[in-house]
């Protein structure tokens, strides 16, 4: 199945892209996709603990099962607002 991946902020800069379409096996979860990315870029392991995930623009945890045409966003720690 095909999943649209979205990257933001530090992760976007690190990967050098804002989004991409990936083919993933049926039954894949977010974790499946993340492990795939880590095999390509092992240094991503360093940000793993602080990363959140959203599917269809809703926060979900990494065990969330994916469906064909889902949009999966990788959300680094948010920092809206000013310093205060």
């Amino acid at each position, binding site marked *: 199945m095909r999943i649209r991946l*979205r990257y*933001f*902020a*530090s992760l976007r*800069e*690190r990967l050098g892209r804002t989004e991409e379409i990936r083919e993933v096996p049926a039954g894949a979860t977010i974790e499946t996709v993340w492990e795939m990315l880590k095999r390509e870029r092992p*240094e991503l392991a*360093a*940000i793993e603990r*602080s990363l959140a995930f*959203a599917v269809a*623009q*809703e*926060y979900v945890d990494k065990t969330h099962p994916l469906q064909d045409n889902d949009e999966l*966003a990788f*959300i*680094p*720690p*948010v*920092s*809206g*607002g*000013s*310093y*205060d």
Partner: protein
Amino acid sequence: MTDKQHHIFCKLTQDPIELRELTDFVADPGAGAMTTFIGATRNTNDGRQVIRLEYECYAGMAEKEMVKIAAEVLARWPVIKIAMIHRLGRVDIGEASVAIAVSSGHRHAAFEACHYAINQLKETVPIWKKELYEGGELWIGSQTGMTGSFQKVQEEDRT
């Protein structure tokens, strides 16, 4: 995004924030109290001389998360209306990056609700800021500087 009942106004914008837009929205003949919060770009952060900030968001989801906070505020406090606006792109020193306005019959509710809304916004809304400072740049709340080494920058929050 304005809800059907016209009690919620949430917006992301590239333009400078006009507080008046929010206070006009929340004004109401039954509102004895109105509180506002404005977050602006400070000239220093964690010992660094800040030049400016640059904000980006997850378009669509950011707005939805803001509306969720607003709806929660309306459910938890006797608040009449709430308006939240966040700026995107470049924000210079002294300029507002976020503003919230809340109207209520009573000031205690208005203060609590406004404070809660900004706390939640900082926790849940997918918006990110990159700090450009004298000597480099840094994603705040994030892990990676321009050097490529991972470093942790904690946003200040002295409770």
